[in-house]
């Protein structure tokens, strides 16, 4: 690529960057460079991302106790790479474990949108899957998938820590497949 055509490439406006970068990506796509780089780096991204799952530390109800139990020395969820972060900006998985009252509904949506992409959503326990014991309630949302798209459902009431780890190992496969598909220089 001839950088002399872009003399101010270090500091450019957003519009200039978009045209500059899409020209570069198109050039790499047509030359087959992107496919090569994807093939080379995809497994690296997948390995890194699937082994550093950072769910949002957002305990809602009794399943949050099981979430805590999964982190203790007996189950040790950190060995599959789960580290809870308290800010949605630092996470890539929205883990909802418990009933979602209708007053909480906009806040769940906001938390989901604050997580940087790519992001995954896990519905943990019957309440988050379908409302569970609060079927037809006046105040409980009948399932997390009415608000945000859900990737993995982990059933149980409450779920056991080993079931939760099993669900996250399923999610690892999903993360793995996503990054192996090739994500180099895609937004």
């Amino acid at each position, binding site marked *: 690529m001839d950088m002399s055509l872009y003399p101010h490439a270090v500091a450019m406006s957003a519009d200039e960057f978009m045209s500059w970068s899409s020209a570069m990506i198109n050039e790499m796509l047509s030359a087959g460079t992107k496919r090569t780089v994807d093939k080379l780096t995809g497994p690296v991204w997948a390995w890194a991302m699937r082994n550093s799952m950072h769910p949002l530390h957002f305990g809602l109800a009794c399943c949050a106790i099981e979430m805590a139990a999964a982190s203790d020395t007996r189950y040790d969820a950190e060995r599959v790479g789960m580290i809870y972060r308290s800010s949605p900006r630092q996470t890539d998985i929205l883990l909802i474990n418990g009933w979602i009252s209708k007053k909480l509904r906009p806040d769940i949506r906001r938390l989901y949108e604050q997580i940087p992409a790519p992001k995954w959503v896990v519905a943990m326990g019957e309440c988050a899957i379908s409302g569970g014991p609060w079927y037809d*309630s*006046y105040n409980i949302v009948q399932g997390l998938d009415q608000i945000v798209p859900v990737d993995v459902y982990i059933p149980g009431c409450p779920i056991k820590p080993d079931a939760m780890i099993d669900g996250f190992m399923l999610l690892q496969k999903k993360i793995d497949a996503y990054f192996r598909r090739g994500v180099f220089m895609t937004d």
Partner: protein
Amino acid sequence: MSEDANIIEKPSRDDIVSLVKAEFGGKVEFIESTKKNIKAINEGRRLFMKADREVLHDLAKYLHDKLNFEQASSVAGVDWVDHMQVVYHLTNYCTSMVVEITVDIPNDDLHIASVSDIWEGANWHERETYELFGIVFDGHPKLERLLTPKSYEFFPFRKSYKLRGQE
């Protein structure tokens, strides 16, 4: 509270009955419980009374100021279809005595005096009773819905409220 000379720190069951009768006369009625198998009732730590709506605030203030009932354990509502009821549980820490006051209010005038100026802890109990039954507590500092969204225009614990599955 003990620096107040008028306060009776550990009023007995008989003290409460005689003092409240002397103060409020026929406006407060003591009722016998039908649940005789409960241990606390047999030991005399439960007292049931039915008060008129007009004297409820004075009665609550009297129980708090004179008879040392320092805590409002719960304020709840009951929908009896033909009328509504507000139930107060007041606790004396020194004797573990719990007084239950039931107040009947008519369906067409769901107003009652707030006791959150006497016990701050009654504040959220009254808000919850308001959001579930629609009973308005006059004099409450912030009578808004507590756990349900503000957009709700119904009161879900009323018998007239039907869920979709009950249709």
